[in-house]
């Protein structure tokens, strides 16, 4: 349906309605198309007038749709009028209308009214993050930073996740302002990014950089760079934090892995108690390992070659440095078959320790356990992203720990383009999170367009130092 360009008389609306296939939803369809085409507000008004004359009342949905159109065009006085009418007509409103009202009012000079509305919403429900976003932006636009941060902290306390947009607006609106309190709050946001392993995108990063450089009398200087594999920043030669966990974190992560990933609700789901015990004693007898290999995963690297040859290549590559290897596999690898030749298996067992789990057991969980038990220096080799194991962990904090540990200890294998060699992507030496030393900040950021999975980390960094 194409909405008309000018306000229409009642009989003209009637005519249009008659020509419409489903007269029952005519006004809703009409208003939707007005919203889509961003029609002049008078056209919508004429439709409402026609409806009011016909029925003596206007349905809530129609009012909400009209409100959407007003918010879209920033018609503040109309928004207030609709709110007055709604308030009288209905005892409470629902979240959709509140969202619209708050959004509409917060971007006008009536923004204080949006705040009172937010209070009203809080009485009956937890406001949505868009509500908070509108109010916070309004407050910071009018330089009421204290109020904005109060709302922000309240939002965090209610477990409402802020959008990156809100966080960015804080930096944008604080540009050039002085104040120890303000600085502390903004550093707090950077720490929030750190705690939750969030990477800002390019424009957000730019806002952060500009804010730092605009602080009067502090001489911050930001530059874009990429960090060397050694973990050194080429701009300020500063060594980034290493990816090791503390002793405490290690033991808590090991415990969680055993409790939630290996045992879960029922030990029999992934292994059996007997098997796990046997594995534990096996590991304790031979500790510590340097590298733990997921045998089956590595054996599938090249589909053209025999699986045992793939594994042999990997073991040979890794055994050169005199490292103690543990290969995890399943019992079917011991049966002589076209893919698993007995003599090659024998040859490998001279170079590495092997543990074979039952064919219906999960070998990945054993891999995690053995690596964690061996200590900080131990790495593991697999192409698996370990997403399903991360998902077994119950709380976000442990999941973050797990990811951090994974980044620092996983060696990823991939086949080289030609020839027999296998390439290894070494584990990260440094931790890829927002970090500070007081007079420097290092902030990893991503391009807006690149998709980021939780196991991928950005390679680009913003380095900020104080001269």
């Amino acid at each position, binding site marked *: 349906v194409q909405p008309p360009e000018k*306000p229409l008389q009642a009989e*003209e609306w009637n005519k249009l309605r008659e020509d419409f296939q489903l007269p029952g939803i005519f006004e809703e369809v009409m208003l939707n198309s007005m919203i889509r085409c961003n029609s002049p507000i008078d056209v919508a008004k004429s439709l409402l*007038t026609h409806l009011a004359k016909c029925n003596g009342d206007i349905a809530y*949905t129609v009012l909400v749709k009209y409100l959407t159109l007003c918010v879209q065009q920033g018609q503040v006085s109309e928004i207030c009028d609709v709110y007055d009418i709604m308030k009288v007509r209905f005892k409470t409103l629902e979240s959709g209308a509140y969202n619209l009202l708050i959004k509409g009012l917060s971007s006008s000079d009536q923004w204080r009214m949006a705040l009172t509305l937010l209070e009203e919403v809080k009485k009956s*429900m937890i406001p949505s993050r868009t509500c908070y976003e509108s109010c916070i932006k309004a407050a910071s636009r009018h330089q009421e930073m204290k109020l904005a941060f109060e709302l922000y902290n309240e939002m965090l306390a209610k477990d409402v996740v802020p959008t990156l947009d809100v966080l960015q607006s804080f930096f944008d609106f604080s540009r050039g302002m002085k104040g120890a309190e303000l600085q502390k709050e903004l550093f707090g946001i950077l720490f929030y990014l750190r705690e939750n392993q969030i990477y800002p995108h390019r424009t957000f990063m730019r806002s952060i950089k500009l804010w730092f450089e605009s602080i009067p009398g502090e001489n911050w200087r930001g530059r874009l760079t990429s960090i060397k594999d050694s973990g050194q920043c080429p701009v300020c030669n500063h060594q980034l934090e290493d990816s090791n966990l503390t002793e405490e974190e290690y033991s808590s992560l090991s415990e969680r892995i055993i409790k939630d990933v290996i045992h879960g609700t029922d030990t*029999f789901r992934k292994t059996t108690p007997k098997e796990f015990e046997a594995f534990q004693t096996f590991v304790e007898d031979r500790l510590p390992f340097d590298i733990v290999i997921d045998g089956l995963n590595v054996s599938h690297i090249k589909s053209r070659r025999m699986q045992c040859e793939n594994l042999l290549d990997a073991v040979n590559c890794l055994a050169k440095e005199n490292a103690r290897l543990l290969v995890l596999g399943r019992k079917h690898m011991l049966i002589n078959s076209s893919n698993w030749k007995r003599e090659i298996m024998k040859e490998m067992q001279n170079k590495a320790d092997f543990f074979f789990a039952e064919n*219906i057991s999960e070998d990945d969980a054993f891999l995690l356990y053995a690596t964690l038990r061996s200590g900080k220096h131990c790495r593991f080799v697999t192409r698996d992203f370990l997403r399903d194991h991360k998902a077994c962990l119950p709380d976000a904090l442990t999941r973050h720990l797990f990811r951090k540990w994974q980044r620092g200890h996983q060696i990823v294998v991939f086949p080289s383009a030609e020839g027999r060699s296998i390439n290894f992507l070494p584990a990260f030496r440094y931790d890829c999170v927002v970090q500070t030393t007081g007079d420097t900040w290092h902030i990893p950021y991503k391009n807006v367009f690149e998709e980021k999975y939780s196991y991928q980390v950005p390679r680009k960094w913003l380095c900020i130092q104080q001269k």
Partner: protein
Amino acid sequence: MRSANTLLRKIVRSSVLPFAAQHGMKKDLFPLSRTLSLSLCLKQDKSCEPSEKLDLDEWKKVMRSGLQEEVSETVSEPKELSSLAAARETLEMWRLAGRAVPENISEEQLKTFMECPSKSAKKKYLKYLHLKELYKKIDKRKMDEKRERRLEAQAQESKTDETKKSPFVCLWSSTMDRAYNWRAAQSMIFGQPLVFDMSYEKEMSVREVTNTVKQIVMSESSNRRSVDPFHIHFCNFKDDSLYHREFIKQYKEAWGKLLITVTDQCYTEIFPKDKLIYLTADSPKVMKTFDHNKIYIVGSMVDKSIKRGVSLARAKRLGLETAALPLEKYLLWSTGAKNLTLDQMMHILLTLKDTADWKKALEFVPKRKYCGFVDKPVKELKKTLDLINTLKLGKRREEVERQFAKNYPKK
């Protein structure tokens, strides 16, 4: 444009073809006339001034004036609402906003709604109630229509007033029931046992349990109607459990008269271990033939969220043999999970028992989950399957076309 329009109207009005205008032509003119009338409206504003000036804010006056009396009422009422009443208000507003919300909601449902842990859980629950209500309405409407039709038919018959004589004896459902029960009773003594493992209540939500019970009721009825029924055992059945309550809700007073064995013992206590086979989709072993001397166990569980390996873990713990249906061997699987519902399982097992024909038995697997039976070498079928999938998912169009051209060369 305008002249064309008036001309058109004149033709219609001039009753040259009054009949045609009313019937046949209306259809053809309708879309045309619609666009014309629209453009007419738009044009009119530019060409001639509207006779009266529109008051655009009149709707506000109407809304406010109609509410004056109501306002005086609302002011006087107490501000504080109980949480239940507040929830009702919220629902009412959502309904007005056009969300999927049931029209009537009981106290119990309202409490369940308030206990939902998150916004999305609340939405889901309301949508479920809304759909339930909708289906109920539709069913009721159909029943009413049916009744009316029946009454009409009866009225017709009473007019004709002829007694029909049928050469067949009319078999009433009670007679059928008696025959079925007789068979079921025989199966209780001589039939092959089939065990439903009722130990999964902890792993399921309330809704999953009700679904499980519904599926078991369906399986039991299809078993009763078969030529040679199983002797059904409900093992690990705890009295006064959620299962039990749901069964009573479903069967009502028939629950006590069912010709099945219900016990709180484990199947390993009743039957010798070497005869038991636990059927689970996660099993590494594939069933080749149906063994009449073995006792099959089916886990009574519906898992709306994927719970892999739960039933396999049970079998592992007790050291039982396991088996999975040979779905991949006989069917060209396309989409969906390989765990089947309990009533489908029952149909398949009954058919296997009577005919030992896999193809016939696997007819009961939902058609949407497979593309056909395997009768050619699998490699050829794989190509067809990929083709079907790509066509269905609409991906890689050129590649599909190339494939297609390769498979079916032009002659």
